[in-house]
């Protein structure tokens, strides 16, 4: 398995490996998965991801799929969404979920944490104005609780409000009654999520073995 790559593809793989940090086998596997999802075309569309059956019961499915097509996550300068992505973008988005390597300095860890938290921030900040407003946060909580049975929007609203209040108290300290807290900026986001070590949590295991045969 994995012996029949043509030379230009190998060359591309090495480029990707340098850019994203995956190993060559991992890139090969992900490419196979990409081809499986896109039915052997060169680009992937939202519909293709929608059709994954396992994703159907995920409450934040829509946001996950959006994240793949969000230009902010492609590590190029630009915003907005695209309709279809190529393998390179797919790989770039996947690279956000790589685990930290064993010997990382403190600054590298800090940088990795920023990058990962930026990804999460982009997922919440749908209108790309640099802040997560109360509406957007409410939407996040609603989606999170959407699969939990008979739930009212009121509960989600209450939770989101409380969370927002917490962020405001932590970031702004004291506010006058007529001051208005615009939304969670990226810096505030970093501060409140400092406690959970995101670089050790936000990763999945990328196997070197091809598993596309086993999964749908």
């Amino acid at each position, binding site marked *: 398995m994995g012996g029949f790559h043509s030379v230009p593809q190998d060359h591309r793989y090495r480029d990707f490996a340098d850019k994203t940090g995956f190993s060559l086998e991992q890139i090969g596997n992900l490419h196979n998965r990409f081809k499986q999802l896109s039915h052997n075309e060169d680009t992937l569309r939202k519909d293709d991801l929608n059709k994954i059956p396992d994703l159907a019961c995920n409450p*934040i499915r829509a946001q996950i799929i959006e994240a793949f097509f969000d230009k902010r996550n492609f590590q190029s300068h630009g915003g907005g969404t695209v309709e279809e992505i190529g393998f390179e973008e797919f790989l770039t988005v996947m690279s956000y979920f790589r685990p930290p390597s064993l010997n990382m300095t403190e600054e590298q860890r800090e940088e990795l944490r920023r990058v990962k938290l930026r990804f999460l921030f982009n997922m919440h900040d749908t209108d790309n104005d640099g802040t997560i407003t109360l509406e957007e946060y409410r939407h*996040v909580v609603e989606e999170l609780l959407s699969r939990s049975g008979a739930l009212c929007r009121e509960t989600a609203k209450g939770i989101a409000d409380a969370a927002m209040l917490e962020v405001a108290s932590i970031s702004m300290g004291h506010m006058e009654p007529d001051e208005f807290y615009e939304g969670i900026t990226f810096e505030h986001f970093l501060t409140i999520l400092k406690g*959970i070590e995101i670089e050790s949590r936000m990763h999945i295991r990328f196997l070197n073995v091809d598993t596309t045969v086993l999964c749908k």
Partner: protein
Amino acid sequence: MSALLRPAGGPHRSLVRRWSLLVAVLILSVMASYVSASVVRTGQGNGTTTRTDSKTNGTSHHTKKAFPVLSINYDYVRMPFEISLWILLASLMKLGFHLVPRLSGVVPESCLLIVVGLLVGGLIKLMGENPPVLDSKLFFLCLLPPIILDAGYFLPIRPFTENTGTILMFAVVGTLWNAFFVGLILYGVCQATGGELREVGLLACLIFGSIVSAVDPVAVLAVFEDIQINELLHIIVFGESLLNDAVTVVLYHLFEEFANAGTVTLVDACLGVACFLVVSLGGILVGAIYGVLGAFTSRFTSHTRVIEPLFVFLYSYMAYLSAEVFHLSGIMSLISCGVVMRPYVEANVSHKSYTTIKYFLKMWSSVSETLIFIFLGVSTVAGPHSWNWTFIIVTIFLCLLSRVLGVVGLTLVINRFRIVKLTGKDQFIVAYGGLRGAIAFSLVFLLPEDHFPMKNMFLTAIITVVFFTVFVQGMTIRPLVELLAVKRKKDTKSSINEEIHIQFLDHLLTGIEDVCGHYGHHHWKDKLSRFNKSYVKRWLIAGERSMEPQLISFYHKLELRQALTLLEGGGAAVNVSMQNIQPRRPSPERLIPHMPKGREEEIRKILRTNLQNTRQRLRSYSRHTLFEDPLEEEEEDYSEVQMRKKRVEMHRRMSHYLTVPAKPQTPPARRVRFESDNQVFGSTPTSTPSSRFQVSLVPSIQVSRAPIARMEQMSQESVSLVDESSQQQDSEGKGASGSDGSLGAELSVIRGEMDNLRLPRCFSDPGPNKIEEEDEDEEEHFMS
């Protein structure tokens, strides 16, 4: 601990003097009890014989004894008296240690308790009596289960499941390696040195090796609790100490059988492996069955809240005993019972029962632990010893060596599969934290004399090893942790933001795994939780609480905590309030439905009557419970009185707003209020109870959110905001609806109370003090 102490030297010294006096008195009384026991026993014997004598001669003799006004009958109460005396001594010791400032910081409690045990044992011996030895049956059946149950019930599940592979490797492979390494080399050394050591056979050495190699959960808990290292290391060492019980049990019985049989064959070895699987998996299965039974029982206890904790304890103890019947691993069964039972029981029992369970477990485990260490000291003085320098020194050395080699070797293998690798510092702590304790001692005690002629030597050796690990390693681990700057336990309280994002991350990672196309860790965890939600919870949790997702229960707990701290603090300065985050610009889609006038009247009437009813009810019983527990006392706490008063005031004020006749200038205001009420009535009586529950619940949460102490202010604000909204052209601002929503929320609270059949259990709470304590305990519950 040291915060309790007074800095002045004078009163402090007198306190210590007082304590030492008390301790001395107690020790003397212990001695006295022994002496008097023997005296009284003989005295009583004499008494009875004389009486029988006089009875036989009674008819002829008629020796009339004077009526005993005051007599001593110690024998009657001897057993429970002595037990209580021991427990009292143990608890007083514990108290005493924390009063002496520097001692508790430097020396871990376990060491001090062993020293006390040594002293007491020495004193008893001086009196000429035989000091009691730690009876193995007493130990395994009475002293060990509470500690293990406490550990298992409060086991932090998330780090445990994340590191299961690592823990199992250390527990199984590590213990096997230790056992064989120590056993074989010890045998070689014994044969080499000769003399009396030559009698020690291979099997004896192997069984000794297997006993001495097991890390002890009691000792680990006792020492690690003080040093507060980070969660990962704690769960690895602690989990290993719990799970290696299966290995120890199997090896012990295996070698015991072989000692009987005399020869070992390959078939026996294979049977040993099969036995291991049976012991561990069987133990887990037995525990799980009892756990499910316990959870199922707790579903029906809503009318007998008082005995709820009893079910938890009984089912767990039965799980332990049932496992011991079949020689399965009792510890693993106890752990799995606690782990399985806990989420369902916690959803079903009342808040008070939850507190009771928690504190009883802590109390029992604390007493057990203290007793174990004291008895360890006493048994050291008591037990028959035979000291052999070579054996003992070699044992200690080998234990350390095998532990270090085992940990380092295993980490090399494990790190290949772990994503967050174990660093050198981590490995050092894991190796150094492998303490031996009372379980090893008791197991040696159980060895039959005839097969193991060198039993006394083993006993001495094991006691030395235990002392060495507890004293030397226990005392030095704290400065070493500080020296190596090992990551300590985070003491930040969990915030709702973190909770939201952790859950978000879980779903995100599951989704990415699905996109990526391989079934990993997150996928299976997600599947398990979905199975749990759709099938298991429905069976084991009573009523609608089975539908409540974790985020919501977390949020409720947080809200309650905050509301009560606010109440206690008398309205502490809230820096940021709801107004600051509500966007001022109204959202255009908010249309206010026009309500017919008749309906308005009807609504107002209903609300007024409800208000009156509630006010009456509130006066009688402030906690929002419909199940009037006859055995619950009406604790007229200061804070509750305050809460009640404020609530009554609030209702009075609201009824004023309602009865104010509708003026033409303020239709928007009134409409605003009723708009939110409309939401309440939108859910007609035919709607499902759960939605009604949810609707009324959240606004009631908002009530507690608004600082009740600032209530006057708030109502002023709402009045002003109402005026504002009438001035603004748009129907209403979100800002207005914010505080009006809370007013409307008040109304829906009342309505909700009347209709609500399921209560948030967080509201039947004993009092704020306990909540605060619980707060800290929540954080450190995994430590204890």
